[in-house]
């Protein structure tokens, strides 16, 4: 509808630029180079920084030595007298879930006590985790549960968000529908300025870091 009119007005507004048209080659080069801005400087190893920042973001956190210890770690998060009914991202199918547990391997449900997902990366600068949507990681599992459990390999912690983008394939075929950078439980301060957790999303986010 308004496409050609808007573009014409933009070009007329920019008529003072050196070239009548945008210098497409130079702009494509900038896009390909993807220049980074000033970084938040910090010293030291990535993992201690990531852990300190994620705790400041109100994540809770546990470190385990291997994926074999994941099932007991999840079991411990639920009341002992209750047979678990949880949602698990298919990325964690191979973990060996007890057959007596009720496990939803699909998208999130309207009432969702606990979900377990696998993070694509962690960001040390901000203590954030990065979730990448796909068949093995439905987005709703990040937002519907009361308790969101995120499994993160220690080796997947990178320094900056720019490092996440460098690792990801941005091409149309590979780029996911949704990339969620998560830095804490859901919260709001819309009633009287008081911070309340949760708002619409998880009340708590438990990180389980696998020290591999």
């Amino acid at each position, binding site marked *: 509808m*308004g*496409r050609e*009119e*808007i*573009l014409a*007005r*933009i*070009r007329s*507004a*920019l008529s003072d*630029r050196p070239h009548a048209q*945008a210098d497409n080659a130079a*702009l494509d080069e*900038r*896009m390909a180079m*993807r*220049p*980074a*801005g*000033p*970084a*938040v*400087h910090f010293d030291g190893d990535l993992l201690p920084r990531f852990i300190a920042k994620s705790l400041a*973001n109100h994540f809770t956190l546990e470190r385990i030595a291997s994926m074999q210890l994941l099932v007991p770690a999840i079991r411990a998060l639920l009341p002992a007298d209750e047979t678990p009914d949880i949602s698990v991202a298919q990325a964690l199918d191979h973990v060996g879930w007890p057959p007596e547990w009720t496990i939803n391997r699909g*998208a*999130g449900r*309207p009432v969702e006590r606990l979900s377990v997902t696998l993070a694509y990366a962690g960001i040390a600068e901000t203590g*954030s985790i990065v979730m990448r*949507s796909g*068949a093995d990681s439905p*987005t*709703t599992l990040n937002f519907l549960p009361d308790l969101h459990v995120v499994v993160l390999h220690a080796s997947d912690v990178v320094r*900056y*968000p*720019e490092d996440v*983008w460098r690792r990801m394939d*941005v091409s*149309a075929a590979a*780029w*996911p*529908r*949704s*990339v*969620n*950078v*998560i*830095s804490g439980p*859901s*919260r*709001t301060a*819309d*009633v*009287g*300025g*008081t911070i*309340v957790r*949760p*708002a*619409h*999303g998880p009340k708590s986010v438990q990180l389980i870091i696998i020290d591999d």
Partner: protein
Amino acid sequence: MGARAHGFRDRASEALADANLQRSIASLKDGFVAARARAVAELPEFEAMREAGAAIKDHTLANLDHYLLRYEAEVVKRGGHVHWANDAEEACRIVRDICHRVGAKTVTKGKSMVSEEIGLNAALEADGLEVLETDAGEYIVQLAKEAPSHIVMPTIHKTTRQIADLFHEHHQRYGFTERVEDAAELIGQVRSVLRSKFFAADVGVTGANFLVAETGSNVIVTNEGNGDLTSTLARVHIVTAGIEKVVPTLNDTAVLLRLLARSALGMDVTSYVTYATGPRRPDDLDGPEEYHVVLIDNGRTKMLAGAIRPMLRCIRCGACMNHCPVYLSVGGHAYGGVYPGPMGAVLMPMISGHDKAQELPHACTLNGRCQQVCPVKIPLPDLLRRLRHEQWEEGFIRGKSRWGITAWAWLATRPVLYHRLTKLIVALAGLAGRSRGRFHRLPLASGWTDDRDMPAPQATTFHAAWAKAKRQR
């Protein structure tokens, strides 16, 4: 909405007398201003980041046609649709047509200031659709049939008690029969009421903090998680965004996000930053079947063409209003438009026209704090002065103001006469006000003396005092 901006003076007077409002706004001064100052002090790179942020936006704006086309191509490549709207009416029509085509009954909405700007809710409701704001703050102002009074904190004008009354009135039908005043319980009601609505929605509308040309993504920055439930659970996701929201790359969003969270909330990060791109992929277990973006001009190309272009750098953090003595005295509703505070005083005349927002560029003391805290260095006071000048040139300033300014300008360009006359006035006024040192009333100055006294001059002009001091040196 713009039409309400006519009565800024009346609304400001009402706001000053509203004790609840005054208490609510005071929390901004203590909370957000201090938090931002701490966050900035902790980051030695902040100043360099402001430069980088402004440069990214300037570069994009200088090549806006290129980046919008690149963005559009990437959205289409990833299965989405891009629509272009010249103005508010076209934008609403595009959204209404999509809703109509997919047989929508219920529309959920994440927070989107541009959707407020185009009046989307009213347009959809006129078609018989149920439209539900899902951000807790937006939900509250929608229930109260009010407009947001701050672009980041829509309910900053409401006390907990008022919200408790509102929910007690509207939530009994959901089984919440008791009136509660606890913030956590009140938010718990919002969560419970809206959870099923997310699943029932046919269309989910969100805004965009940024559009990424590199990947065709829209970025939303939130804390509640409602935006993601809106965009993921509805059958159709529609993004409403101004054309100035595009940036070239993912790395550019990293620079701007560092500025945004610190400037808006005084925090390093928000709980959620989401890059949403296109509809669900063939293997996906969730996500919308359709993905649409409505790119909205509505006055933005006019800003691009002229001296107001730097305003298009704005990333909607709200720091300018949090630091504005006028906003902090009268709150957001006094501005009468969608965007309040310094950024609103520039945007509203450009979006609605000078005739609809004439008073806003004058609701400013030119103290400059907004420019000092702006994360992308928008010279807001200069832009406001520029708009005042435009209003003068285009004849929007009339009556006593025009006559007074014309007379003063005539006098100010005649230095000899000016000095003699001011010397005389100052001497007479000094004499008249000698006993009390101040005046309760002055002719032609009731706007000042109605609310406070005018100090009496010291019986000598600045020029005379200066000349005397020079002689004594």
